[in-house]
């Protein structure tokens, strides 16, 4: 190649490096080999997944654990379509991701060429934006723009489709300036007037509650939330995505609210006169039926995305902006105000006390239930396994899959505030857990990463155990193996005719043996004491440990909203 010339593939790799990319999760194919060729001479580490879906979830898990944009790479056609579930998962949970796909050469596009698919068309509704690059000199500015879009405002995935001949084309290597995006200006600074009004309303509220959502985590504002709570002494409930928005051990944290929320948390929301919603989109799993949602409450809604304001519930006082800008200003208005009463003197103190008492009585009930069964005789249940794991892994970064174990994990495995809980909340993607945990472990090598999965979810991307073993990460996988699709069975039990043909598996898979074959450490536990040994050993072990937790006939996960509002809860057999 002549001096001063570059190729599309080289420009891509150089731009990724410039953007600080350390890892790419990918899978090779005919239409992205020029990129792989260029990657060989790069400092970027490539993690070879065993399925493109795995690569996408790894990039997503990496992004959620680090806050940086995760990058995945696939070839054209089936490689690209295999990314789709991963892209949609990232989109629903506002996770910053850059998905790069190879495409057939420009002259072949539209001819139904081998491994051709219109991936920009397919991913249009599940990306923040996407691109089909038409010439090599556009590669660098478009990749820069893609990073900017994925990682700013409300985060999300961006797809960049690069035809093979664009990857190999030579072009005069000069820096192209990024375009000005007149139509993209995320509002980050909250309106001062609205913040002032919010402070006034908050001061007066008798029964206030904070709903902390996933936005708190994507904006890294957990300390701002903690500061705010300290100032006003208001109770906090969280959505599934917001579990690690506020320290789970803090007495003011009433836990998960919504469809599987606790009675205390759902009472707080349902009886509140003022909800301060921080970075949540009021998803249907949170609100239950909208007509009966929080009827007495005024809602102050802080969100970076104006389209979320008033989408599901009307906002009394919308504040569009970055939580990192809005919340500290709100806190300082409230702490500076002269007429603010101390948290214990304000009329709302009684409200808080009632909620805390309600939560206390529920907790005592639960503890009694678990202890009653004794140790070795106790059949292993998911909550018992989770309690043991939580003890063996304090300060864990918890990753879940999707299903009954996911809700149990949200309820029974406390985590500290921060990027410490990763789950597929919006799309509910079974098979997300393992690859996301791999990405998370690579992003946070200092943290103890624990994946709670079920036998249904685990099997959906189990091939990534090989990837996990290869990367040298430390990871503990606990498979809640009850040989059934627990959540499906619960729904069939509750709302259908309790026929379980499709939700029970006849084959008893030995996940410990399977893990060993895939290069991991395998262990199994059929009782609480076995499990305690297994988790302690796993916590000390290097590499990847898979604990096959033989869960017996599992109890359904409760509470669950079975009525027309969040207080019509079924609380289980207790």
């Amino acid at each position: 190649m002549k001096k001063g010339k570059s190729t599309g593939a080289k420009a891509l790799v150089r731009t990724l490096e410039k953007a600080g990319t350390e890892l790419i999760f990918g899978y090779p194919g005919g239409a992205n080999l020029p990129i792989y060729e260029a990657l060989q001479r790069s400092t970027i580490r490539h993690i070879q997944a065993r399925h493109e879906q795995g690569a996408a979830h790894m990039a997503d898990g990496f992004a959620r654990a680090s806050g940086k944009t995760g990058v995945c790479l696939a070839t054209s056609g089936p490689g690209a379509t295999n990314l789709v579930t991963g892209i949609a998962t990232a989109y629903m949970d506002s996770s910053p991701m850059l998905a790069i796909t190879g495409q057939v050469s420009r002259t072949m596009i539209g001819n139904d060429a081998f491994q051709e698919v219109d991936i920009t068309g397919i991913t249009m509704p599940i990306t923040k934006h996407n691109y089909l690059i038409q010439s090599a000199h556009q590669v660098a500015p478009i990749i820069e723009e893609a990073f900017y879009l994925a990682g700013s405002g409300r985060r999300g995935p961006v797809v960049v489709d690069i035809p093979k001949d664009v990857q190999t084309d030579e072009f005069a290597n000069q820096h192209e300036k990024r375009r000005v995006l007149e139509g993209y200006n995320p509002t980050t600074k909250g309106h001062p007037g609205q913040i002032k009004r919010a402070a006034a309303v908050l001061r007066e509220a008798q029964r206030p509650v904070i709903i902390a959502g996933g936005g708190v985590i994507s904006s890294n504002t957990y300390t701002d939330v903690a500061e705010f709570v300290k100032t006003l002494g208001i109770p906090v409930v969280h959505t599934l995505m917001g579990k690690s928005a506020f320290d789970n051990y803090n007495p003011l944290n009433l836990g998960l609210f919504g469809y599987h929320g606790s009675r205390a948390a759902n009472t707080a929301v349902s009886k509140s006169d003022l909800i301060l919603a921080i970075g949540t989109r009021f998803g249907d799993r949170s609100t239950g039926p909208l007509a009966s949602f929080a009827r007495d409450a005024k809602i102050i809604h802080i969100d970076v995305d104006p389209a979320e304001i008033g989408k599901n519930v009307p906002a009394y006082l919308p504040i569009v902006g970055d939580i990192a800008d809005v919340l500290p200003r709100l806190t300082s208005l409230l702490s500076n105000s002269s007429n603010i009463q101390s948290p214990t003197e304000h009329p709302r103190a009684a409200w808080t006390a009632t909620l805390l008492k309600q939560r206390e009585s529920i907790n005592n009930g639960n503890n009694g239930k678990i202890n009653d069964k004794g140790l070795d005789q106790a059949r292993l249940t998911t909550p018992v396994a989770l309690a043991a794991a939580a003890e063996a892994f304090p300060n864990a970064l918890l990753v879940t899959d999707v299903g009954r174990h996911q809700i149990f994990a949200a309820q029974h495995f406390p985590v500290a505030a921060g990027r410490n809980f990763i789950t597929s909340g919006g799309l509910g993607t079974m098979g997300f857990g393992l690859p996301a945990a791999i990405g998370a472990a690579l992003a946070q090598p200092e943290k103890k990463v624990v994946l709670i999965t079920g036998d249904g979810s685990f099997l959906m991307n189990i091939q990534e155990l090989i990837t996990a073993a290869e990367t040298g990460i430390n990871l503990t996988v606990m498979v809640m193996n009850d040989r059934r699709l627990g959540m499906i069975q619960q729904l069939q039990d509750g709302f259908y005719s309790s026929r379980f043909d499709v939700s029970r598996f006849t084959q008893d898979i030995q996940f410990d043996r399977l893990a060993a074959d895939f290069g991991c450490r395998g262990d199994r536990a059929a009782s609480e004491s076995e499990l305690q040994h297994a988790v302690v050993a796993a916590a000390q072990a290097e590499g990847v440990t898979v604990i096959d937790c033989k869960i017996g006939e599992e109890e359904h996960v409760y509470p669950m909203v079975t009525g027309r509002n969040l207080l019509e809860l079924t609380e289980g057999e207790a």
Partner: protein
Amino acid sequence: MTHTISILCDDIPGVMTRISGLFSRRGFNIESLTVGHTERPGKSRFTIVVEGDDGVLEQVRKQLQKLVHVIKVWDLDHERILEREHALVKVEVHEQDRANLLQLITVLQARILNSSGSIWVLEITGDSKSVDSAINLLSQYTILESIRTGKIALEQGAKERGPSNRL
């Protein structure tokens, strides 16, 4: 109710698909859609007429605003709207009807674009309602073919004063 949405956006490939996709996904049938260049190079303006639930449409408007290449969206105020639509109507005219049709053409301020024997092509311009009624009046003759551009619209007064800038 009927809404006239005006969208200023970058003039690039794919922008039309992105915009129309947001309507179709929520079950809106686009009654008319026009797009053309504007006073600003590289920018296009869409005028889209849709009928639908106000709340759902407000959500569509916000989602449109989120598209990276959409600069601004207006749900045009029906009190302040200036709209025009263009139609070409091909009619078959018999000898004995010519005088009447010529009179109607004068009343409608239509123009004869082309006439070859008994086949006349007429051009009509006006707001959508007048185009409706013109075509209605012409239907007493035999209409062989007709086509309408769909409406283009702006608001009167200073620009960018649409009611959509609420958030």
